[in-house]
């Protein structure tokens, strides 16, 4: 990115003055190297977001920001319904509530060492992944609607997990604003047998080892110690979420047009929060969030079954579940006034600091665990939200490494078999349905996740707690 277009406000904060149709500035959190490598399109897309009606404070880009469609990936924006603020289907994206959950296992690396290949095989066999895979559940329309209303709570009520899991999911696993009647038959049809499936692309199920702690106190609160084994699941709302996006985008393009909202890019399709289409989308999108957390809950159950069959001494406890493609209603303080805002996070993680009322009682002192997914060959991180982050970015931070290279470039540079071999040499077992898919997800196609996390911490968005490295990676 042309750094001369930006003003540097501090070492890790960059600023673009509002010009033209922008209502607010753009604020990018990153170090100089990440800024230099950032695509010009991030600047353009973040500026486009800044021009949407009712945007408050700034259009933010996180350190892992890259060129998305509509919003940049790593984009955060809050809208005030009382100021004509909008909700954007493009600002949430097609994988509604795609997210990460981390499960503690009570096992250490030496416990699983003799079982690594068996574990990889069993997980790959029992977790439906990749195109065309089906889950074991088949939902009829009544059950579908119950799932869309109940979210992870629905899953737990049907025996997929424990009530204590719910405490460790954002909004306790259930968005109350969900309205299944605003979700099309097409979307429900697409989801009939996709509950409990991983999907494909950058989605994964990993067994990771804690390799480093940065903050002993918070690590202890999160029950993390070096050499501990953690299960990480990255996936989203499957066909239902994709179809909700598909259904509402054209509707919002037309609404924006009829209401005189000028869209610099059709993918920014949006509607006023206080409009009919806005209300319909909010009801549907919240079903998408519930679907995603129900999906991760069912997958958790499948993983627990694998461990119970192979390593019965394991005790899989949910550390936390975060969604990183959402729009949520939150209270934030704007110039000393508490306001109810609609916060869009597109490829950005909520990172509430200590004392936030939405946190469960045992996390209120520490702040929210923030789960940052890496790539197959590098590292993942567990961070914790900060008070400062509440002010800097509506309590948001990065979501992963962020791609540095397109899928096309990645397949030109690497072959999937070579990627698998070189990871095996590092002790990482990869089970993936597709060789080309593995090449597209090669670790080298991503930014350096450690640099992203470092910038996130130094900017004050969240604080590092632990670094984890993959041992087993199951890809779709």
């Amino acid at each position: 990115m042309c750094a001369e277009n930006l003003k540097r406000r501090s070492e890790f904060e960059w600023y673009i003055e509002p010009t033209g149709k922008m209502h607010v500035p753009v604020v990018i959190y990153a170090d100089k190297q990440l800024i230099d490598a950032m695509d010009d399109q991030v600047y353009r897309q973040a500026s486009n977001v800044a021009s949407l009606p009712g945007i408050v404070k700034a259009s933010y880009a996180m350190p892992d920001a890259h060129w998305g469609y509509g919003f940049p990936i790593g984009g955060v924006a809050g809208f005030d319904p009382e100021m004509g603020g909008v909700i954007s289907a493009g600002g949430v994206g097609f994988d509604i509530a795609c997210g990460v959950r981390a499960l503690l296992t009570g096992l250490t690396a030496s416990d699983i060492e003799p079982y690594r290949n068996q574990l990889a095989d069993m997980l790959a066999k029992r977790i439906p992944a990749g195109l065309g895979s089906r889950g074991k559940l088949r939902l009829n329309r009544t059950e579908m609607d119950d799932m869309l209303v109940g979210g992870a709570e629905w899953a737990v009520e049907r025996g997929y997990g424990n009530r204590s899991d719910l405490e460790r999911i954002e909004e306790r696993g259930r968005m109350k604003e969900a309205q299944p009647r605003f979700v099309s038959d097409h979307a429900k049809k697409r989801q009939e047998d996709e509950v409990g499936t991983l999907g494909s692309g950058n989605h994964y199920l990993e067994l990771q080892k804690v390799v480093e702690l940065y903050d002993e106190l918070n690590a202890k609160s999160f029950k993390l110690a070096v050499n501990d084994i953690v299960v990480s699941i990255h996936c989203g709302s499957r066909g239902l979420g994709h179809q909700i996006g598909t259904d509402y985008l054209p509707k919002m393009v037309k609404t924006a047009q009829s209401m005189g909202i000028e869209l610099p890019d059709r993918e920014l399709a949006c509607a006023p929060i206080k409009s009919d289409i806005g209300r319909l989308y909010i009801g549907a999108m919240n079903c998408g969030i519930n679907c995603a957390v129900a999906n991760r809950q069912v997958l958790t159950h499948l993983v627990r079954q694998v461990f119970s069959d192979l390593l019965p001494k394991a005790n899989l406890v949910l550390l936390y579940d975060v969604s990183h493609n959402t729009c949520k209603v939150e209270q934030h303080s704007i110039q000393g006034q508490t306001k109810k805002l609609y916060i869009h996070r597109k490829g950005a993680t909520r990172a509430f600091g200590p004392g936030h009322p939405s946190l469960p009682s045992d996390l209120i002192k520490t702040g929210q665990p923030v789960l940052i997914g890496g790539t197959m060959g590098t590292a993942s991180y567990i961070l914790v939200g900060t008070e400062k982050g509440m002010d800097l970015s509506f309590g948001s931070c990065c979501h992963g490494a962020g791609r540095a290279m397109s899928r096309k470039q990645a397949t030109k540079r690497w072959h999937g078999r070579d990627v698998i071999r070189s990871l095996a040499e590092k002790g990482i077992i990869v089970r993936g349905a597709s060789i080309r898919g593995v090449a597209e997800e090669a670790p080298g196609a991503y930014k350096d996740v450690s640099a992203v996390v470092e910038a996130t911490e130094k900017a004050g968005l969240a604080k590092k707690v632990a670094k984890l490295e993959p041992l087993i990676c199951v890809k779709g």
Partner: protein
Amino acid sequence: MSSKYWEHYPHPADMGIRGFGPNLAGAFEQAALALTAVITDLQTIEPKEKVEISCQEQDNELLFVGWLNALLYEMATKRMLFGKFEVKIKNGRLNANAWGEEINVEKHNPTVEVKAATYGDLKVEQDKNGNWMAQCVVDV
């Protein structure tokens, strides 16, 4: 180069697809091939079964994305891949036939699932020779 072909173009997170044709319908057919080629090798798909698809939109760009998303819906719900297309467009209404077969992971070795066709980088244009080009970013 013939006036009828498709290509992929790089996009950092996802994939850009582009179809060219002597007319709008031809460009849409080619773009559907580009979409399928994101998922699998086109040569592996046999045209065993025909599915009819139709959609309607107010302009060519919305119609283009509507067409690709209608196709993705058929792929997802019928668990099929399509390798041959015949598109007709009249007054903003698209009627198409798609030929393909049920997904067979061993045979088709699918790389990735496409979540949706997006309005990102969306263009439907006619060049000075009268040929059409249709492109957009697909979310994978």
